[in-house]
């Protein structure tokens, strides 16, 4: 059992602006980079292939292909260093850990996309 004091401490360090996304989604993470005394945001766009649960220690891994080479980056979910996480599109996957993508290249490494508009339409139809 987590102690209430620990939860209190962690709550101070959790970000409240975390957007809802899951494994399989393509996201664009704007990561703050320090160059000298200037700071700017750098985008890293790719597929989320893992999301770990937790409080302040939660993280997610983004994989992208860069000039034919697979690049993976692990981001702490509650880090103050990201400026924004944009969800580019939602992928239809059946598991949280998509490590099988590492062995796939090109067309085979694509994921089915979830059409959110279509889903909303279905939900509305059901209501009616």
């Amino acid at each position, binding site marked *: 059992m987590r102690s209430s*004091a*620990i939860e*209190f401490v*962690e709550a101070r360090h959790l970000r409240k602006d975390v957007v809802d996304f899951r494994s399989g989604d393509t996201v664009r993470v704007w990561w703050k980079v320090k160059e000298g005394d200037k700071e700017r945001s750098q985008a890293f766009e790719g597929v989320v292939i893992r999301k770990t649960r937790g409080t*302040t*220690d939660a993280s997610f891994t983004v994989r992208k292909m860069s000039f034919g080479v697979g690049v993976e980056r692990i981001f*702490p979910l509650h880090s*103050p260093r990201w400026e924004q996480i944009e969800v580019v599109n939602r992928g239809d996957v059946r598991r949280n850990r998509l490590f099988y993508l590492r062995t796939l290249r090109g067309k085979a490494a694509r994921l089915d996309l979830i059409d959110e508009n279509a889903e909303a339409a279905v939900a509305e139809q059901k209501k009616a």
Partner: protein
Amino acid sequence: MKGLIGKKVGMTQVFSADGNAIPVTVIDVSTCEVVGKRTQATDEYTAVVLGIEDAKEKHLTKAQIGSFKKAGAKAKRILKEFRVSEADLATFNVGDAVKPENFFKVGELVDVQGVTKGRGYQGVMKRWNFRGFGQTHGTHEYRRHPGAIGQRKTPGRVYPNKKLPGHYGVEKVSMTNLTVVEIIAEKNLILVQGAVPGHNDGLVVVKPAIKSAMRAAHKAKK
């Protein structure tokens, strides 16, 4: 030397202002109070007595109850004296709660003393970090053994303090030079970087870092 008694709550991870994740131990001092003073006049030395965890009267002797009543403090289960100068002693009032922000600043180095977790009767590999023997190449019933423990007819005995199997853990251990990451005054919590001896809910003593203070004093002398 100021110091206080706290309770180890547990460990977690927080982010620093520049975004680095820091492993921290949370120390709770909310039940720590000043329960007495030792003065030059009566005791020939000056110290402040701190207590932690409220005690029920039925668990105390009449003498203990009397001493708490005389001092005008709440009965506490665990007491500890901290030597302070006469000027510092005047800043403490019996019955006051201990406020961590009055003791330490964020970024300050502290020593944290606690009693390590008990590990029972352990062999030399766990207890003394011996290397043991090869797991293969014909090792026969001698994988985690200590090896030779002495010489021959001279000296004909095993030297004192020879590292051998035995009871491991439940020792007083100090972690030195831990950084204070955060002090949460409203909940009386101290966050120190890194691990602290003992199990969760165990008692710890937090004091200013003695080694770095000595080093600073030595440098100032030069």
